[in-house]
């Protein structure tokens, strides 16, 4: 599973995103529920930012607003300083459940974005898709439907389906949840390699603190209902990052600090 040269050496331009005092409120059985309470955070250009939070902390709502599927009830979601509009290929989401089109083969799924945006010819799209498929170790599965792929293959398929569009920001909503431990470790390394080679701006949402520290440049901690950012941590572990880092003193110090932050919240729940 190699990621070498996935972006074929071309110079890509990426974007930064930020949330400024974002509120989200829902009506539920006549009651008003505050899902997000004044969220502020930055996803800097060319950085891998992780957002850690327990379930029910509104992580998916944040992704949905950044992707443009939902709008905030207060505050602003900005991309390069401008409010985001509707969904588009410059901000692509990779989900925890597979969002591959079940009725399209791996090749059809991969070429779907370019063909819908009609920016390149079908021949060119297939050529680029094939290169990405080969680089991700999915060769031979081009004509398979998603249900015929393993969990790890589905995630990789979804990542390349996003990457073929040269997104300016990649939004990942717990993409590795539900994978077995072994596949998950392999996929974490895949994400790191992908990031380090492309330097795509990435937001990676997870409920796993270990994963966040292993992957991120910056980790934001989200509290539970109503969600707000309670703390932030700069992860200064070296890059290129490999699994060797997991047994270092620095990693464990970050981990201990992160656990303190998360546990502090538990006291007042």
């Amino acid at each position, binding site marked *: 599973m190699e990621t070498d040269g996935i972006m074929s050496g071309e110079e890509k331009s990426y974007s930064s995103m930020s949330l400024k005092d974002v509120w989200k409120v829902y009506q539920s059985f006549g009651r008003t529920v505050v899902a997000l309470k004044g969220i502020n955070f930055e996803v800097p250009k060319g950085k891998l930012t992780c957002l850690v939070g327990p379930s029910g902390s509104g992580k998916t709502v944040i992704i*949905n607003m950044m*992707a*443009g*599927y939902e709008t905030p009830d207060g505050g602003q979601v900005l991309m390069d300083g401008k409010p985001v509009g*509707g*969904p*588009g*290929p410059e*901000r*692509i*989401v990779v*989900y925890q*459940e597979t*969002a*591959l*089109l*079940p*009725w*399209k083969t791996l090749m059809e799924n991969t070429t*779907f*974005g370019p063909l*819908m*945006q009609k920016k390149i010819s079908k021949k060119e799209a297939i050529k680029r898709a094939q290169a990405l498929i080969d680089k991700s170790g999915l060769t031979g599965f081009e004509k398979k*439907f*998603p*249900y015929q792929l393993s969990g790890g293959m589905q995630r990789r398929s979804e990542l390349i*389906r996003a990457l073929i*569009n040269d997104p300016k920001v990649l939004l990942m909503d717990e993409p590795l949840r539900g994978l077995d431990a072994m596949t998950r470790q392999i996929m974490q390394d895949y994400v790191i390699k992908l990031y380090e080679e492309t330097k795509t701006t990435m937001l990676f949402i997870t409920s796993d603190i270990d994963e966040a520290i292993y992957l991120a440049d910056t980790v934001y901690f989200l509290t539970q209902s109503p969600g707000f950012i309670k703390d932030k941590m700069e992860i200064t572990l070296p890059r290129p990052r490999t699994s060797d880092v997991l047994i270092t003193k620095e990693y464990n110090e970050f981990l201990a600090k992160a656990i303190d932050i998360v546990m502090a919240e538990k006291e007042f729940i």
Partner: protein
Amino acid sequence: MATRSETSKSFEKFRKNLISARTARRIGGVAIFVIAWQLAADAGIPGIENVPKPSAWIAESIDYVQTEDYYLSVLGSMRRVASGYVIAAGAGIPLGLFMGLKIAFKNWTFPTFEILRPVPPIAWIPLAVIMFPTVESSVLFLIFIGAFFPIVINTMLGVLTIPTYVAHAASSLGARGKDHFRHVILPGVTPAMITGLAIGMGLTWDMVVAAEMVAGGHGLGYNLWYSYILLQYDRVILFMVSVGAAGYLYSAVVRKMGGKYVKWRQMV
């Protein structure tokens, strides 16, 4: 050479299918049913003793199934079902899609639809007779009613079962309007739509028999009832079996055509 091996391969496949265990079990199952029926009738089991024995009605039917009379009644019912069904699908699928896609349209139409839906199709017979000038159009209308409701409701529910994140992902990738409909909605709704089409097809045979019994003029249902009046019980059985066989054939066609569009689904 290639053609020869192709031919021998397909012959091999044909031979295998002809005597495969699956085929043998299917035919065997029907045979056991017929034999059990014969034995039960011979033994004089109450209820069944009054039903014509397979040996009797089959012997009696051999000449009759070769008459134009029989042929026309089979063809008549099959044609009616096909026409009514195609109209029901043609109207029901777009309506179901609209109701699933446009919430305002659903608000306007769904309550009316839901009040009409539980009305058993046979309860429409009096209205069908009043509404239409000819027997033929009344029968067609009743077949239409039978198939229409399951097709609409399943198509509508099919739209609602398309996962939000799949539709979201497709729109992020740039699928808009017509493309979104063609590549996301239509394939996503297909499995539920096929279910509706299959249920609808089953009901059309209910309806054609009921309608022909009441208003028929010709067709399998009419002849079934007419034979009963004339105390020709052997023919009653023959017409019942004919309805069953024709219904089986039609459902098999729907399943076969439907199966082509859902190859992407995991078959369990």
